[in-house]
Structure formats: structure tokens, C-alpha cells
């Protein structure tokens, strides 16, 4: 029947609108849900969400070792050429040559924080940091080298 379908249509429309309005009324009356942070005032007590993406960093352990094998997966995954991996060849004690990174150059000014490099990395060598105060007076300061000077690859990471 056309008429019954029509009334059902009107009813379901009103019902779904009411559901939406109940949600916004909940937010309107529950101010603890507000996620805006009063940034300059609460700089010391800032509470950033877990998945906040500020910049790409490479964690090092106490022996100045990282997990990067220099496979360039991150460089290939990056959509706008933010990462450049410069590799070199280390010579092992037993005389074998092994590929390793010389520098992992990261252009913060080109990065859109898309997280594709972190997902592409097979050995979890890079991750997103929660820093966000990135402004500098000179553009060249935004080009960063992620591996520490003199660092080498962790044992057991291939």
C-alpha cells in the first residue's frame, strides 16, 4: 500500500532525526566530552591523544643502536618524497660486506603526516612522535637526519 509506505517513511525519517538530535543534545549538556585543549595555558600538562602524529623519528636504544636496515621501503612508500635513504656498505669482522644506512634524511617541510612510511617499515625502525612545535626561522632546519651520528644497526635485525 502506498499510504502505509508513506506513513512509514515519515515515521522513520522523524525517528532517525530524533536519534541525531539526542546525540548532539548529549554533547551539548556533557561538557566533559569537549576535546579542545587550551594550548598555550596548559603547555606543561598537555594531554595528547595516543594516535597524534607530529613528526617521524627513529628511536635509538642506550647503545646508540637503531633498527633500520636501509631497505628504502619508507622512501618508496612516501607519496611526496619526504624521506631519502642514503646507504653505505659496512664491512663485517669476517670480511663480508653488508648494506646499512649512512643517513636517513627526512624533510619535515614536505611531510603530511600520512603515516604510510611507518606502516611500510618492515622492522619498526621509525615511528611518529607527539611533538608539534615545529616552527623555525630557517627552512634548512626542517631537513632532519633521523639516525644519530655514529649509530649502528641493532643486533638481530635483518
Amino acid at each position, binding site marked *: 500500500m502506498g499510504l502505509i509506505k508513506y506513513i512509514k517513511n515519515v515515521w522513520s525519517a522523524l525517528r532517525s532525526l530524533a536519534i*541525531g*538530535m539526542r*546525540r*548532539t543534545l548529549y*554533547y551539548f549538556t556533557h561538557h566533559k566530552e569537549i576535546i*579542545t585543549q587550551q594550548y598555550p595555558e596548559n603547555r606543561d600538562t598537555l594531554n595528547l591523544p595516543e594516535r597524534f602524529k607530529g613528526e617521524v623519528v627513529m628511536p635509538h636504544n642506550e647503545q646508540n643502536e637503531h633498527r633500520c636496515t636501509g631497505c628504502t621501503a619508507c622512501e618508496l612508500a612516501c607519496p611526496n618524497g619526504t624521506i631519502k635513504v642514503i646507504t653505505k656498505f659496512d664491512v663485517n669482522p669476517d670480511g663480508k660486506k653488508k648494506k646499512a644506512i649512512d643517513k636517513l634524511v627526512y624533510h619535515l617541510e614536505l611531510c603530511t603526516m600520512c603515516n604510510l612510511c611507518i606502516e611500510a617499515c618492515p622492522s619498526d625502525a621509525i615511528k611518529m612522535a607527539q611533538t608539534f612545535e615545529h616552527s623555525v626561522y630557517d627552512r634548512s632546519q626542517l631537513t632532519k637526519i633521523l639516525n644519530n651520528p655514529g649509530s649502528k644497526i641493532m643486533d638481530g635485525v635483518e
Partner: protein
Amino acid sequence: MPSFSHIALLIHEWLSSHLNSTLTLTIEMVIAGVAVISLFAVLGLVLVIMERKVSAWMQIRLGPNRVGPRGMLQSLADTLKLLVKEGLTPSGADKFLFNLAPFIAMIIAMLLMAPIAFAKDFQLWDLNIGILYVSALSSVTVISILMAGWSSNNKFSLMGAMRSGAQIVSYELSAGLSALTIIVFTGSLQVSDIIRSQANGWWIFKGHIPALIAFITFIIAVTAETNRAPFDLAEAESELTAGFHTEYSGMKFALFFLAEYVNVFIACAIAATLFLGGWMPFHVGTWHAFNHVMDYIPSSIWFFGKTFFLIFIIMWFRWTFPRLRIDQLLNLEWKYLLPITMVNLLLTTAIVILGWHF
């Protein structure tokens, strides 16, 4: 107890004891005009800050919080900014119409203030066709929008204005028919009569289900008529930049902006008058003790309380629902609202003839 009607009477008596009747009338008109303009200014400031706070809290944000205590002076600062900005006129525009359009929007909003009863016995002009006057004038708003859109000589403006034309012309019908439902109950178009008929209960309670349906359709229709989201196709920031006021800047833009908010206020005031009893306190039939307690709250507080409650509901709509497409908009009016209001009007008429209402 000093009330608005008391103050008005005092001024009238003082003036007529000192001056002749013509001069008294002239001065009273000037006072009324100044009062309406200052009400406009206050309404603009209050409604803008209210809208921004409501929208912020509904979207889990904080909203303006830097200017003044808790950000309450933000709209004043915005007004100052708009006042000192240059009112640009594009070189390709029809200069006369372009500059005239915001003033027409404003004048119509001012004229609509006339039949609204702000408090007990406090009304600018209690003409006997009050509701007809309001519905006739509010449809003239489309002329100012079309004028602005056409004279801007800009495709976005023209498209916004054309959409607005289609929208206002169609939603005028269901707004009128919904208002007519209450007219059928009261048997009078005069605003003071309509309010007096609600002394033993507001029409939304007395009028059974038809009044409730009429209330819902009226609110939907006036939301569309005042070009507010989810029916803001005339402006549609994301599609048409700003629709008919794309080319406007400075104070000319502010006039359009103010006219929109004042129109919302007027639409809500009319809805409050028709369905929620205007300044009439909350009365229940023959509970005389309860009614007497309610009478202690001043009538102006009742009126503004109801009106601002309805404004809040319209803001609630805006920050909850997504914008409709133009075909969905016209579908909603011609396939749903109009048939529903027509059947509802028939039902109301039957109820009134059979004497089933209170």
C-alpha cells in the same frame, strides 16, 4: 510592579499632558523606531554569541573564550571589525540594486516586528490581520535575496538567489497552512486575540494531535524560510561560497547577517505566539492556585523564554542535520509537508466543527 506596558503608559501620559496629540504620536513613533533598532542590535549580538556557543558545545568544542568574560564579548568585537571594514561594490555589479538589497532585507525584518506582542499589552501595532501581515511580509524577503543575487553579477550569487526563491516560495505554503490550523481554532487573525484564547492552556496542549503536527511542520517550514541549515541552500558555504552574499563585505554583509538572525527571532516569536501562548503564562484549565503562581512571573520573561527556547531548537537543527540537496528540499515540501499540513488542516476543521477541542 513596573512592566513594559506600565512604562509605555507612563510615557504616553507624560507626553500627552505636555504636547498636542499629533506631536505625541510623532514622538511615540520615533521612540518605537529607536526601540526596535536597539532591539535589533541587542538581538544580533546575543544571537550570534548564542549560536557560536551552542554550535561549539554540540560539536565538542569550547567556542569563543578569549574576548571578555568566557568569550561573551566576541560578537561585539566582530561587529566593530565589520564596522571598520570597507563595503566593497564590484565594478560589474548593478550598483543601485546591489546597495539597496541589504536595506530591503533589514526594512522587512523591522516591519515584521510590528504585530509581535513582547509582553502583556505591549505591542507596536495590534492590527486585526496580524498573522496574514506577517506571512505576507516575510515572503517579500525573497525579493531582497533575488536582488542581491542578480545585481552581484556573479554565478554563485545568482544560483544561491534562484535556489532561495524556489525554497521560500514553496515553504511559504506549508508555513501558512500550519499557521492556519491555529487560526481555525481561534477564529481570529489578530495577535492579541490569539494570545487571549490561550489563557486556559496553550494551543499545543489544547489542540490535540493536529496542533502538535502543525507545530512541527511550522518549525520545519520557518527554518526553511529563514534560509537556515539544513535548508541553507541559498548560502551553502561549501558549494556556493556564500550564495547571494558572496560579493558583500563590511557593514552591508553585516546587515544581511543581522536580518537573518532577526528573521529567526521573528519566526520563533510567531511560533511562540501561535502555539505556546506568546506572553501568556503557563496555565492549566481550572487550577486557579497554580495559574495564580504562574502569573507572578512577568509576561515579558514568558515571551522571551519561549522565543529563545524555539531559537535554541532551530540552532539545534542547524548543528545536527546535514544540508539537503535542492531536489530533496523540494520533495520534502511538495510530497511530504504540504499534503500533511493540508490533511492536518482538514482534521482541525473537523475537530472545531464537532467541538472536540477544549
